[in-house]
Structure formats: C-alpha cells, structure tokens
C-alpha cells in the first residue's frame, strides 16, 4: 500500500474509529473496570479491586433462590420480548401494506411512520400519560360512551403500551426493507403450485422476510431492555426495569460498582444474543439469498 493510500485510509476511517473509541470502547472499558472496584460513600469508586458487586448480584436474598435483581433482569427481558412480539404483530401487516403500495405512496407512508421522531421521546411519553391518566383522554372518552373507567396508568399495561409505541418504527423499517425486496412472482408461483394464502405466507413470505424480522427484533429488543423513561412515567416507578435499577444504583443508592456490574452482565447477555442471531443469519445467507 502506498503512503498516499495509507494517509487516505487514515483520513477516511479516523473520525469513525475515534468516535467508536471515545464513546463506545472507552466507556465500556470504564464500566467493566468500575464493576470490580470498591464502592465509595457519596458516589464514585475507591481504586481497590473487589468482586463483591458480582457476589451480591448472584446471591439469593433470604429464603428465595432468585433475588430482586434477577426478578428485574427477568422482567426486563420478558418485557423486551413481549414488546418485540407485539411490535411484530402490529408492524408486519403495516410494513406489508406499505410495501404493496405504488412507489410514490410508499414514501409518504414511511414519512408518516417517522414523524413521531420529530418530537422528543420524553414529551411523547408524557402525552401518553395524559391519555392514559385516570382523568385522561381515554377514561373521559370511555365515560362519555357509557363504559366504566379503567385504571391503566402505573400498571404494566401502560408501560407495555408506551414501549410498543416507542419501538414500533424500529420494527416497521427493517420489515419494510425486507418485504419490499420480496419478489411477488414467488407468491404467484406458490399459489400456482396449490398453496393457499396461509401456506404461501408460512412457506414463502415468512422465510424470505426472516432477515427483516430478525433485524426488527434486535432493534426493538435491545433498547427496550434498558428503557428508563417509559417505566418511570407510565409505570409510576412501581414497575421497575433494568434502566430504573441502574438509575437507582448510580443515583440515590450511590453504588457505582454495583451499577456497573449490572451493566456488564446485561451487556454480556445481549451480546451473546446478537452473536447468536448474526450467526444464524449468516448461515441462512450462505444457503439462501
């Protein structure tokens, strides 16, 4: 490689590499290091190696095999899974519908899907609070139409609604991208060979759009596990997720090493999940498209 090419590569790759180093690798390393240091009263760490955070994370609380932290872990994973599933149920037909529209209409629909991003997520979540409040829009309407009011704010249902609402575009976009690439002649070919609508979907459309489903799930699942705003505002702090636990450790509890240990364990879990996904993707890619 010539000197000039090297210089050009450094120039082109430098900013990206620097960004990753500064804002991804360094903080990540910091979190890992902090997780094995000693807690300092009033926040921060003492530079003394101490694995007690991990011990605390995995030791059972009196009587119960699973401690409270594990409950929050499990809840975060479960809700992330539930959110992904609901987003998929709503997002797939929507993405399919958009992909079937004529080209000029498609971009309008995609624009509509993206419009919520123009407003701050915090503001939008507060808007949901006003809708779901006991005296909010939903209950006012229910009452006007002669139904019982429902207590929905500060329940898991409210949190789920908020999570699905916030994540839906991240599901719709990759799904749209893969459905739009689908060759609809294949649908006709399958029907021609005797496949009814359900079989066509199961045997042709679903496997061929699986990469979009995978990408959508990854894009929804991972951010949702770390959600902080939605459970705080719509769950009223009663339904803690991982984000709330972290905020508590770094905030009121002032236990930075423990907060870091939680982050590390979660990072490992999610990375394992993504690696698993990418590997299965590659296998499909090699054999299929």
């Amino acid at each position, binding site marked *: 490689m010539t000197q000039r090419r090297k210089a050009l590569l450094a120039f082109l790759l430098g900013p990206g590499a620097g960004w990753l180093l500064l804002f991804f690798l360094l903080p990540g390393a910091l979190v890992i290091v902090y997780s094995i240091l000693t807690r300092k009263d009033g926040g921060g760490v003492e530079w003394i190696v101490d694995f007690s955070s991990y011990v605390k994370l995995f030791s059972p609380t009196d009587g119960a095999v699973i401690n409270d932290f594990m409950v929050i872990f499990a809840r975060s994973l479960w809700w992330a899974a539930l959110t992904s599933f609901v987003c998929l149920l709503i997002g797939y037909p929507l993405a399919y519908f958009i992909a079937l529209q004529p080209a000029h209409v498609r971009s309008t629909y995609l624009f509509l899907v993206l419009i919520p991003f123009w407003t701050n997520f915090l503001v939008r979540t507060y808007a949901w609070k006003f809708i779901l409040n006991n005296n909010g829009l939903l209950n006012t309407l229910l009452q006007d139409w002669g139904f019982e009011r429902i207590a929905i704010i500060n329940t898991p249902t409210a949190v789920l609604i908020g999570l699905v609402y916030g994540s839906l575009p991240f599901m719709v976009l990759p799904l749209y991208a893969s459905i739009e690439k689908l*060759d609809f*002649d*294949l649908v*006709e*070919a*399958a*029907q*021609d*060979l*005797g*496949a*009814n609508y359900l*079989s066509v979907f199961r*045997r*042709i459309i679903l*496997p*061929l759009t699986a990469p979009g489903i995978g990408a959508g799930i990854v894009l929804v699942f991972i951010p949702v596990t770390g959600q902080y705003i939605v459970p705080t505002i719509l769950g009223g702090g009663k339904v803690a997720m991982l984000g709330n636990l972290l905020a508590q450790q770094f905030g009121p509890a002032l236990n930075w090493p423990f907060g870091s240990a939680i982050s590390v364990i979660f990072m490992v879990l999610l990375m394992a999940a993504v690696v698993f996904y990418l590997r299965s993707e590659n296998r*499909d890619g090699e*054999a*299929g*498209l």
Partner: protein
Amino acid sequence: MAATFDVELRTVTKHFGSFTAVKDVSLGIRQGEFFSLLGPSGCGKTTNLRMIAGFELPTSGSILLGGKDVSQLPPFKRNVNTVFQNYALFPHLSVSDNVAFGLEMKGIDKAEIAKRVKETLEMVRLPDSGKKKPNQLSGGQRQRIALARAIVNRPQVLLLDEPLGALDLKLRKAMQLELKELQRQLAITFVFVTHDQEEALVMSDRIGVMDHGVLRQVGTPAAIYDRPADRFVADFIGDTNFLPCRVVDHRNGTAHVQVAGLTMSASSDQTLTDNSSAYLAIRPEKVQLYGPDTPHNPNEERFAGVIVETVFMGTDTRYVVELAEDIQIVVRQQNRNIASTRFALGQTVDVGWETVFARVLVS
C-alpha cells in the same frame, strides 16, 4: 361426459382500469395439444394465460378447464401449473424442495414425493441437482427446474409464459425441441405464450395470433402462414409483399384485383366489396422468377418486371423486381443450382406464383 376442450375461453374480456387488455376472446384448446398464443408485447397473450392460471379474473366471459367453469376460482384451486418467464424458483429452498412444493401442498406422502421428484429431475436431465440452491444453477438449468416443478404435479394443462425468452439463441433452439418432445411424452395440454413467431411455428400444433387484445386468427402453423386471415397476421408472421390494389370482382373466396393496371387473381376469407381498395399479399418465397421463353405453368399467373436489387444471402438470393412504377415485389429464390443465380441486376424477367398463395386483405 368428456369435455370437448381442455381449456375453453368464452367471450373473455379483461379491463385494467380504462385499458382493455383482452377483448372478447373465444377459444378452445384440445386435450394434448401444443397451443401457442403469439403476438407482440402488450397484445394480451400473457393476460390470457394469467386468467387461465387464475392470477387475473376476467372482467366478463368465462374460462373452462375440462368443461368446468373455473372463472372465479383462485389459482391454488385450479389443476393447472405455470412455468414463469423469470422462473420464479423459491430462492430459500433446494432444487428438490422446489420441485416437491406442489406435491407437498397436495398432501402426498413423503416416499411418493421423493420418488416423483427423482423421476422428474431425471426427465429434465438434471438428476444430481437436487441438493443445490437455485442460485447455484445456470439460466438453462433454472429453466429446466422451473419446468420440473410444474410437470411433477401432472397438471391438466401446463401454462408457459415465454419460458425460453431469457436463454441464448443456441440453448433456446435446443430447448424448443426438448420441450416439444417432453410434451409428446407427457401428453399434457401445453399453452405456450411467445412473441417469437419462429418459435411458435416450430413448436405448435396450433397457434392463436393476438393483437391489441383481439384474437386475430387461430390455426395450424401452415394455415396461419399460408392463409393469413388479415393484414396484421400476414405482416407479423414471416415476410410478405403487400401490393396496394383495387377489388375488381369476387366470388366464393376468389377475387380479381387490379394492381397498377395489372389484373391478378387471389383468394380471401374476408368480406370484400367490389371497387374498394385492399392489399394483395404474397410471400417472397412463393414467387418464382423466370427468364424469357420459359414454358408456362397453368396454375400460375405471370407478370413481367425488371430486377432492381439483388442480395446474395447464402441459402437463397433476395431480388426486388419492379412490376410497374412504384410497384415492387420482393422475391426469394433458393440457390439450388447454377441456373438459380443467373438473374442479374437490370434484367427483364417474369415473376409468377400459384394463385392460391396470393391473398386479398382488406385490413
């Protein structure tokens, strides 16, 4: 009761918005027949095929398969299979799974499926390709697999939508013969869509020529070639001389016309009006050139002219002969012997043809 036709279209019309793709087409295709729908792109031939397959529903009229009205049935309830122009093989399935797809949908047991898939892959001469994915095959191989995927189901009718269009010339010629042979073996009715007139002539038992959504003529390749029903058919299939003429008189399908002062005899299936203008159509190879003092054949009419152009084309020579001012006729003579090439530019010759090959076409 045995149906008269395997496929029957009764006054079928198809609109797409304000566009009429198929206009009042009635057609019967017999069991075991190799039937081609021929026409330029946009003539409605593919729409016709898609209506038989069930991908499009006719706006009016009905479609019968084996005498049963299937006009409103979805594709998966019709006992027909299609070979698509771009093959439409399932990219995520192996060749075997592609071929097995239709049988699986019918719920046939696994052992029987495996046996029939194997047989069919042998039939299309790709017995070892089962484990491959479609993207590992060449264009010609994909074409065979698309064919295998359809015929493994033993459909009542096989629909082929320009299946050879994407192949190069040599492979296409080989596949034409192979397809024809396969059709003979299977004795399945083939409905074959093509814009290639030569392909249609070579392969078909009968041809339906379409233009602008209208079925112009149905007949054997020889009938369509030798007795085109109208100007479009005469023009679309093969080369034809069109000599502008005036109808002098007509009776029982035979007419006399005037071409720039020359009176010629010709046949016609169209409704003629005396004294109206029309065209006399005659194919270049039906015309014979004669030197002076050649004995006269009683079935022929002869006219004198001057050779104004000659092009040597290997197997034959193409001459342009001027019969009168602005009346030129193209003649093709096989280069059978030395005598065949004796005509030279500027030479005065006689042109003659058997009157059965001359057609009067009004439109």
